[in-house]
């Protein structure tokens, strides 16, 4: 992974010092609440319903075991001994004290971490594929480009006060696991006929209250032009994006209002001025970035025949089936540690679990892990011969629930238990669904299914793009839940369709059951939920759920 040099350390240390002074000025009354707000947000600090919340950046999801141990220490010293992986591959602390935040940042800086631009109306932490560098379907490793974007966007002087937040995602494989079509900018790495690396550029995707699928504005952007082109998009948006209404301020609204073609023209016109300038990437810089993401020391004797072990341990076989993914390198596998056992808020980890992950990573996966936007953790380079041991360790620490990609591997935002913007709680809904659908055989029979829950329209739980999406709504002060069907965040991205009137909390598991019943009755052979839905439409589901009690 990327390793800081003296420049990176210098910049992060200056940030810690700056934020320390800002916090002092705020506590001394020299900065008003209103002024401190965007400043602290740009450092990931929210003042939430019950306490401050600090969002720590995990650049494109990569974490080393050293960083995990530091995070464990921080949750113990400054928080309540646990942390939460977010849907943007970041990590949140729910209970830090405002006065302690500068010290927390100083501790993070020791291990090359920070909370820079994890919130606020600026360019956010860039996200990517959790299987970057190991996925069999990879075209080009996206991580070097993510790092280049991270550096370029960090304290960009021109784009620190944008109309609204701005999220960039990069995908380097055939299958989109980074949900690039629902980001402000989505970058798809491609290689053209001449063998040159570049990007297909999408803009204006996003969730929130006006969900939109991104529009393609450039078919091929040669890699050396990445930053100048991003700068042209951002400048166009900074100058033209709406600032009169926060709900209309995202770039998707601008792209819709101008039309994607016209918007692309504006970007190209701006780009004509800046392309080939000093910000054009050099081959040396691209190579430097790539030099941090070379292959680890793979071993020749990593392969193993697991047939006997799988026959003997049914649970192990299940875990292999759901939580272990194929790898570019023969003999190796990627392992997903599930952070979705029943009864724990999706994405939550304790301090000791963070340390356990660090130990497992050190022993079995070159000391590195990746956070996923589905709120799990990936060990990217595990020898097949070690899988049984890894499974046993994962089990000991509560990571072996074999539910990856199934109904109970839910994406869920913190919701009303923590978030001051929430209309309704989301974690108890996730738990109720997990309790109802605990039968693994049933879950496996249902197959790949995504269920995403958001506690309000801000859609942090990506409910629009879940095969089943649940949205918390407020009706005259009471919490209700709207259900949507048919969303997808993958290459065939689509937004869910609202089923109909919303439901009370207690009814949600029954509603999910009815949806699944319709699917099971109507599916053809191996057809997945999403395909059945796309074939039969929303009507049969509506009829079942809203049928008058006879």
């Amino acid at each position, binding site marked *: 992974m990327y390793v800081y040099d003296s420049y990176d350390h210098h910049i992060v240390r200056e940030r810690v010092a700056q934020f320390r002074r800002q916090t002092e000025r705020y506590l001394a009354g020299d900065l008003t609440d209103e002024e401190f707000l*965007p400043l602290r947000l740009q450092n990931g600090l929210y003042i939430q319903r019950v306490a401050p919340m600090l969002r720590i950046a995990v650049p494109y999801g990569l974490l080393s075991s050293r960083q995990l141990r530091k995070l464990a220490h921080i949750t113990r010293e400054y928080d309540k001994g646990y942390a939460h992986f977010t849907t943007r591959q970041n990590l949140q602390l729910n209970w830090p004290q405002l006065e302690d935040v500068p010290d927390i940042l100083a501790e993070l800086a020791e291990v090359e971490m920070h909370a820079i631009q994890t919130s606020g109306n600026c360019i956010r932490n860039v996200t990517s594929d959790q299987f970057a560098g190991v996925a069999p379907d990879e075209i080009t490793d996206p991580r070097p480009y993510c790092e280049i974007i991270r550096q370029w966007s960090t*304290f960009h*002087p021109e*784009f*620190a*006060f944008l109309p609204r937040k701005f999220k960039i995602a990069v995908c380097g494989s055939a299958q989109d696991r980074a949900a690039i079509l629902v980001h402000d900018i989505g970058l798809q790495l491609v290689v053209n006929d001449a063998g040159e690396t570049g990007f297909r550029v999408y803009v204006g995707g996003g969730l929130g209250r006006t969900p939109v699928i991104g529009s393609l504005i450039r078919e091929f952007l040669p890699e050396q032009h990445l930053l100048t082109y991003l700068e042209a998009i951002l400048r166009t948006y900074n*100058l033209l994006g709406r*600032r009169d209404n926060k709900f209309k301020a995202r770039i998707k609204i601008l792209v819709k209002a101008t039309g994607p073609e016209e918007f692309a023209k504006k970007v190209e016109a701006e780009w004509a001025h800046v392309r080939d300038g*000093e910000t054009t990437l050099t081959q040396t*810089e691209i190579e430097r970035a790539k030099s941090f993401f070379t292959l680890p020391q793979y071993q020749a004797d990593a392969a193993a025949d697991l047939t006997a072990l799988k026959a003997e341990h049914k649970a192990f076989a299940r875990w292999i089936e759901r939580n272990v993914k194929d790898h570019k390198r023969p003999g190796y596998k990627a392992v997903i540690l599930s952070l979705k056992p029943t009864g724990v808020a999706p994405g939550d980890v304790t301090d000791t679990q963070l340390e356990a992950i660090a130990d497992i990573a050190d022993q079995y996966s070159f000391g590195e892990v990746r956070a996923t936007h589905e709120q799990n953790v990936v060990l990217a380079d595990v020898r097949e011969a070690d899988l049984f041991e890894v499974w046993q360790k994962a089990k000991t620490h509560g990571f072996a629930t074999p539910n990856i990609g199934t109904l109970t591997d839910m994406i869920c935002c913190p919701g009303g238990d923590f978030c001051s913007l929430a209309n309704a709680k989301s974690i108890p809904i996730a738990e109720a669904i997990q309790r109802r659908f605990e039968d693994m055989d049933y879950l496996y029979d249902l197959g790949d299914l995504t269920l995403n829950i958001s506690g309000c329209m801000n859609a942090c739980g990506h409910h629009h793009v879940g095969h089943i999406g649940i949205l918390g709504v407020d009706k005259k002060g009471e919490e209700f839940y709207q259900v949507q069907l048919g969303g997808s965040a993958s290459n065939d991205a689509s937004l869910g369709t609202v089923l109909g009137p919303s439901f009370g909390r207690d009814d949600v598991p029954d509603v999910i059951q009815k949806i699944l019943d319709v699917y099971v009755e109507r599916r053809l052979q191996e057809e997945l939920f999403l395909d059945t839905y796309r074939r039969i439409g929303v009507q049969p589901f509506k009829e079942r759920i809203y049928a008058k009690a006879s």
Partner: protein
Amino acid sequence: MPRLVKNEAIVECHRQFLPKDSDLTAVQNRTDVVPLSLWVSQTEALSALGVDGVWVDSDETLDALTDTLSQLALLAIHFPAFVDGRGFSLGRLARERHQFSGELRAFGYVLQDQAHFLRRCGFDAMDFRQGTDLNSAIESLADFTEHYQASVDQPRPLFRRRT
């Protein structure tokens, strides 16, 4: 007299800023700073009076100034709110695209926490919000002493300078 930070020093400014809808009769003094629209419609008359300061609001563009910017000693960009970041782009455009070499001032609601960003975007003068400790603001100019990106103060990005 407003006191501002200019090139790391505290200076007093005696110029008057004329409101947006001002016409020619409002101009009292050659040091008056006129709104963009007045300058554009009365460039010749204002030049004859010796006026050399123009202010631009955050929702305006510099396009209409292309031919006359070189006549100005002062270009002031208005920040109606400190979270309105359009001025940062306008500053860079003034310097990088229009090669403006006079005083580039940020005024309106400007926070000291924005000082180093402003400087990076080409501003050499900043009129901070009332109550700002200007000595502390001067220190904030150096909140960051190294930067990843190219900008007005450092036209080469870090990746071309890294050793």
